[in-house]
């Protein structure tokens, strides 16, 4: 039987997700009602957000949850589902405005004040934002995979929930810089640097797990603990790298295309002395 603490955490988690979804839905509804369907938040973004929430739920329950309980690799797969599946989708949903709209007025005023304060504005400067996002991502990822925090999370459901929430949050922050609508996105070169800065330490973590000669975590595991841990390392490593590479390529090509629109490179020229222009 699942212990009560775990049940409670489950309930809280589901309620939180539901609340977020409800607030988002309400905000989007309001926006669309005022400005017409698909305004401000296009419907595909809304869909992405819902899908992201669904993935969060799926990752926490049922077979995924069981796999995560069974093996380290399963657990890492769960993390990756949250960080690479759910988070980018949630980020694509650009939930800021809709959720703010759905919150009660006093709260909204507070958030507004915070958002417009000097430190917050400083934090939103592209370079700072990129560095902070990459930094937070790295810290969250590494901190939770150190032996002790990992074992805490294994042992206690609430800690585990905090772990997952912080991972989704950090990844959300990171990917928001890349998938948000153009006006709030980081400029592509900075986005590229951010992905590189976040990707390298993440890969290093994967490498540590993969190459460790002994099981790192003191958690009950089967006889193939080491193989499991190696697989877990790769699960951390490959999907993230692949996704980041794809994102980098897309970003880069998009950026070049954009530059090309603004200042065409004039590539269809030929050599030979051009004709004299009349003065």
């Amino acid at each position, binding site marked *: 039987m699942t212990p009560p603490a775990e049940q409670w955490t489950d309930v809280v988690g589901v309620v939180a997700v539901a609340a977020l979804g409800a607030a988002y839905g309400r905000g989007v509804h309001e926006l669309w009602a005022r400005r017409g369907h698909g305004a401000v938040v296009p419907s595909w973004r809304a869909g992405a957000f819902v899908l992201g929430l669904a993935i969060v739920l799926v990752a926490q329950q049922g077979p995924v949850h069981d796999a995560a309980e069974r093996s380290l690799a399963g657990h890492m797969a769960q993390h990756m589902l949250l960080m690479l599946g759910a988070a980018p989708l949630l980020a694509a949903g650009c939930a800021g405005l809709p959720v703010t709209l759905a919150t009660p007025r006093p709260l909204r005023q507070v958030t507004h004040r915070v958002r417009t304060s000097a430190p917050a504005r400083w934090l939103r400067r592209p370079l700072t934002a990129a560095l902070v996002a990459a930094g937070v991502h790295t810290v969250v990822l590494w901190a939770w995979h150190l032996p002790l925090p990992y074992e805490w999370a294994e042992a206690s459901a609430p800690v585990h929930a905090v772990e997952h929430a912080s991972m989704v949050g950090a990844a959300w922050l990171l990917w928001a810089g890349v998938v948000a609508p153009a006006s709030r996105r980081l*400029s592509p070169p900075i986005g590229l640097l951010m992905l590189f800065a976040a990707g390298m330490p993440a890969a290093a973590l994967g490498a540590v797990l*993969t190459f460790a000669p002994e099981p790192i975590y003191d958690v009950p595991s089967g006889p193939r603990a080491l193989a499991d841990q190696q697989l877990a390392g790769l699960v951390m490593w490959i999907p993230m790298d692949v996704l980041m590479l794809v994102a980098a390529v897309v970003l880069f090509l998009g950026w070049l295309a954009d530059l090309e629109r603004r200042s065409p*490179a004039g590539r269809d*020229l030929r050599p030979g002395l051009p004709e004299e222009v009349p003065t």
Partner: protein
Amino acid sequence: MTVSTAEQLRTGVGPRDIAHLEREWGERPSLHSWFATVDHKRIGRRYMVTAGIFFIIAGTDAMIMRTQLARPNSTLLSPEEYNQLFTMHGTAMIFLFATPMFFGFGNFLVPLMIGARDMAFPRLNAFGYWVFVFAGSVMFASQFVGAAPDGGWFGYVPLTDRPYSAGINLDVYCLGLLFLGVSTTAGAINFIVTALKLRAPGMSLNRVPLFVWAIVGTSFMVVFALPALNLANAMLFLDRRFGTHFFDPAHGGNTLLWQHLFWIFGHPDVYIIVMPALGIVSAVLPAFCRRGVAAYPLMVLSIVTIAIISFGVWVHHMFATGLPQLSYSFFSAASTLITIPSGIQIFAWLATMLKGQIRARTPFLFVVGFVVTFVLGGFTGVMFAITAFDQQVTDSYFVVAHFHYVLFGGAVFPMIAGIYFWLPKFTGRMYAERLGRWAFWLVFVGFNTTFLPMHVSGLFGMPRRVYTYPTGLGWDAWNLIATVGAYVLAIGLLLVLTSVVRAIRWGPPAPPDPWEADTLEWATSSPPRPYNFAVIPQVHSVHPMWDRRTRDGLARGEALSGHRTPQTSELDGQHERDTDMPEESLMPLITAVGILVLVLGLLWGWYWVAGMGATVLAGTLARWLWPPERSPQEAGIVS
């Protein structure tokens, strides 16, 4: 160079402007200015000449090795001599020849191609050159006194650690490379900043020549990869000299840590070497195919993706070390993936040739030679990427064959193409076409005769780094052929050298733009005046020299006076301001001497000398960067 009257009439720049610029930028030919120069063209040429000399020494090392290996059981060399030879050959070719040679090209060409008057940090540039010369000289000096590094170019521990390597040899290796790292890093930062900030107005990033992209990509790899090597070498030095235990398993250290660190650097490094070469190919082709390189965005994309993926494949050099099987499958996949961007480039060049109007002059021939050999070398690379196969052939001559195909075929062929192509710009003289063709055929045939047989001897089980081998294993013939080929190759390279010397001595003067090429370096005289461009070009196209507006602008524009160059925005190339450029100075040289003293002090264990060197270093740096005296108004002081 005299500018023809017709040329002069066409520019909107009067003789007064020219005289003024000459005064501002010209460096009096004197001993002082020889040591103090900060002109990127002089520094670039020096880089190339110095790297060329190092190439000849390292190549001669290889010839001695090949002579030893021509027959089995040869006793020409003792094992110690042989081991020093191949280590110095590899180390010097990689660190003292290939990278600095391309840095020389970059130094000379990047400012010209982007329409700037110098590098972003001219003094840092001079400093980088002096450090390079000193580091190279220290390393080669060790060879002449018989104390050269002998641990192979990747210096695996524990062999290179105490107690297995007692003499000073490996200290030279780790200190020398650390020393050199200073120069390479400085150069890389300089390239990036130059390319970002000093581009001529209008040169948005999608109008940047592919060669410049390649140099920037290379420089980014240097910035993020070289630290791993520097750290590894610093650790090795500490282990050897001060008894730390980074790599000592008996005290909790780890020998594989060295391999990881080395190859995290080492793999990006092979692209650091080849990327500028690919850039040269992209610069040479338009002139001889009379059209731009096809699919520019894809070319840029492949530069960027190579730079990124190259950081994720290093374990393919460690496929036999018994790391987890699972991780091998990952690195194997990543290593096969990295061929895609190379394939894109190859087929883009083929498309360029297919769609262009080919003029097969010597530089073009070397590009064709490059395509043939690089593709072959790339194939063997893909074979290694498949772990199971690599475990069989790693550390055999098959690997030696691979990396010479990619290093010589992939990097040196384009390099020679570049030398012929830009010789008019470097020296103001034209080379002789016939001699060039002869050189090409000798180099091409010699190269393949040297290195193709190594595939076979490798497959027949000949390990690398053996000073001799017994007869009867089926290796004798292949080695003999390789040696013969090496001599043919050497003659071919001698012809290349001859054509360069001949051109400088007796070649006919070169016009500003002998090839009708597309980039801005052809917009100035050959060789360019110290200020490069009297009129700063306004760029409208990725082929500015084929673009009427740019040419008109150059012809009619006003000269930018003063010791200044424009700065533009990073992405769009919008003009921001004109900045003053630093004058010639002895500080770079003195600073470099400071580091030299520091390194020599460490090498011999005279720590007080090292301390003195460090003091000189700090003092000169402080002096160098001391802000000029300013009046309160000028500084903007509010009391």
